[in-house]
C-alpha cells in the first residue's frame, strides 16, 4: 500500500460517490415501488420531490467521475517513479492489472451517468414523466458499476507494492521482467492513420445527415459509428497521435499528453473526443423514446442539439490530433 495524498483523495472521493449512488438507488427503489403519477396524494408529492435529490446526486456523481478520471491518471503518473521500468502512468498501470479495469469501468461509469442525466433531462420535460420507471431501473444498473469501480480502485492501490531499497540489496533483481507493454503501440502507423481518417470522414457526414433527416435508422447508424470511432480514436492516440505530440517515435503513452510538458493538450483532446462520441451515442440511444407521444418533440429537439455538439466535438478532436501531424517538423517513417 502506498500512502500518497492523491490516492487518499481518490479513496475519499470514491467513498463519497459510492455512498451517494447507493443512497440515490435506495431512494430510487422507493420511487419505483410507489410512483403513481395519477395520484395527488402527499406521498406522491414527496416522491416527486425526492426525484430532485436523486438527480442532484447523480449530477454530482457524473461530475465526480469526469474529474476523478483525470485525477486517477494524474496520480498514476505521479507515482510511476516508484516502480521499476515505469516511465509514465502506463507503467504504473502495468504494475497490477486491476488498474486497467478500474480505468475502463470509470470510463463506462462516466458514459452511463451522463446518459442517465440526458435521459433525466428528457423525462423532466414531459408533463407525465414517462420515463420514471426506466430511469430508476437504469439507476439501479449504474450503481453496481460505481461501487465496483470504487472497489477496483481501492484494491488496485492497496495492492501496489513500491520497488524500494530493501535492507539486503536493491530491489531491482526481483522484478526485471516488468516492462511496459508495447503490443498496442506496435500497430502499424500507416494502416491506423488510414482507418482513423476514413472513419472520421464517414462519421461526420452521418452526423450531419442525422441532424437534417428524421430517419431513425440513420440515428442508430451514427451511434454505432461513433462507438466504433471511439475505439479507433483511442487506438490511434496510442498508435500515432501521441508520438506526434511527443515527437518521439517510440513513445506511445496515451497519458503523458495530459502533462504540462505537452501543454496539457490531452485535456482538449480527450474531452472533445468524449463529448463528440457521447452526444452521438446518446442521440441514438434516445431514438426509441420518440415513440412516447409526450416526448417526441423534446427528443427531436434534443437530438438536433446533441448531434450538433457531437459534430463540433469530433471536428475539434480531429483538428487537434491532425495539427502536429501537419505542422510539426517531426516526421515518422511509416
Amino acid at each position: 500500500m502506498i500512502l500518497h495524498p492523491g490516492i487518499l483523495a481518490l479513496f475519499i472521493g470514491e467513498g463519497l460517490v459510492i455512498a451517494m449512488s447507493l443512497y440515490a438507488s435506495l431512494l430510487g427503489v422507493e420511487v419505483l415501488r410507489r410512483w403513481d403519477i395519477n395520484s395527488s396524494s402527499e406521498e406522491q408529492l414527496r416522491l416527486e420531490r425526492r426525484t430532485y435529490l436523486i438527480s442532484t446526486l447523480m449530477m454530482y456523481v457524473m461530475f465526480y467521475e469526469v474529474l476523478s478520471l483525470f485525477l486517477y491518471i494524474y496520480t498514476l503518473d505521479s507515482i510511476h517513479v516508484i516502480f521499476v521500468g515505469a516511465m509514465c502512468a502506463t507503467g504504473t498501470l502495468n504494475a497490477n492489472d486491476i488498474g486497467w479495469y478500474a480505468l475502463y469501468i470509470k470510463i463506462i461509469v462516466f458514459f452511463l451517468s451522463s446518459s442517465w442525466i440526458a435521459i433525466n433531462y428528457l423525462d423532466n420535460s414531459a408533463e407525465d414523466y414517462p420515463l420514471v420507471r426506466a430511469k430508476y431501473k437504469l439507476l439501479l444498473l449504474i450503481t453496481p458499476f460505481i461501487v465496483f469501480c470504487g472497489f477496483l480502485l481501492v484494491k488496485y492501490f492497496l495492492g501496489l507494492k513500491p520497488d524500494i531499497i530493501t535492507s539486503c540489496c536493491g530491489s531491482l533483481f526481483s522484478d526485471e521482467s516488468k516492462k511496459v507493454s508495447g503490443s498496442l503501440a506496435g500497430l502499424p502507423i500507416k494502416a491506423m492513420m488510414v482507418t482513423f481518417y476514413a472513419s472520421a470522414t464517414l462519421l461526420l457526414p452521418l452526423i450531419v445527415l442525422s441532424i437534417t433527416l428524421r430517419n431513425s435508422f440513420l440515428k442508430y447508424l451514427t451511434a454505432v459509428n461513433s462507438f466504433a470511432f471511439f475505439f479507433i480514436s483511442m487506438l490511434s492516440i496510442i498508435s500515432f497521435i501521441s508520438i506526434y505530440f511527443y515527437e518521439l517515435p517510440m513513445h506511445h503513452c496515451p497519458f503523458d499528453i495530459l502533462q504540462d510538458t505537452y501543454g496539457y493538450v490531452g485535456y482538449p483532446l480527450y474531452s472533445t473526443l468524449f463529448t463528440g462520441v457521447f452526444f452521438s451515442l446518446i442521440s441514438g440511444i434516445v431514438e426509441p423514446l420518440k415513440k412516447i407521444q409526450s416526448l417526441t418533440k423534446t427528443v427531436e429537439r434534443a437530438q438536433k442539439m446533441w448531434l450538433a455538439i457531437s459534430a463540433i466535438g469530433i471536428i475539434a478532436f480531429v483538428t487537434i490530433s491532425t495539427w502536429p501531424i501537419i505542422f510539426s517538423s517531426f516526421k515518422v517513417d511509416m
Partner: protein
Amino acid sequence: MVRIEGISKVYNTGLPDEMLAITDVSLEIGRGEMVVLKGPSGSGKTTLLGIIGCMVRPTQGKVVINDKDVVKLPERFLTQIRRKTFGFIFQHFNLIPGISVRENVCLPLYPTNIPHAVMKDRVQAVLKSLEIHHKINTEVTRLSGGEKQRVAIARALINDPEMLLADEPTAHLDSKLSEDLIVILRRLSAEGKTIIIASHDTIVYDKPYLNRIVEMRHGKVIDVVLREPLPAIQ
C-alpha cells in the same frame, strides 16, 4: 379562466394533526373578473387561493386553468404555469430584505431565460405605473408601508400575469393605504387582469365594483354573491 370542481384539501393525511382545510368546493371565475374570497381566518380562503394559484395540490377534485387540468401536473410544470399565469400579493408583503427594490421586483424573472434588456424595461415600466419608480435602487427595509405594498404589487406584475392573487393584502395597512391598494387593483382589473382577493376586511369586500363575493366558512363555500360589473373607472 379558472374552473374548480369538487375540490378538497386535507393536510397531513394520516397523521394525528390531520386537517381538513376545504371540502367540496366548486367555483368558476371568468377572465377579467374581480373576486373576493371572504370569510374569517381558518375558513379555507388561503388554501383555496393557493389551489387556484397552483401552489397547493388539492387532495381531490379538478382544477382547470385556461382549459388545462393542472391537478396531476408535477410540481415542476405547476411552477411553470404559475410563473406565466399568476402574480401573488402576500399578507406580509414578503419582500426580501437587504436587496434593492429593483432586485425584489425582478426576482420572479431570475429563473427564466428572459433577456436582460427586456427585464430592465419591464421593471422600469411596472415601477413607473405604480409611481414608485424613484425608489428603484432603495433597499426595501427603508421603504414605508405603502411603498412596500407597491413594490409587492410590482413584483406580482413583473411577469405580466393574467391573474393577480392577493392574500389578505390590507391586513397590515391603515385604511388610507388600503383604499390606495384597492384603487390600484381596480385599475389593474380595468386593464383586463383577473383579480382574486382573499380577505375579511370590509374595506375590500364592501366595494360595489366587485364581480363576485365568495363567502367561506369551515372550508366550504356558503354563499356566492354575483354582481353586475360596473364600468371601469377612468
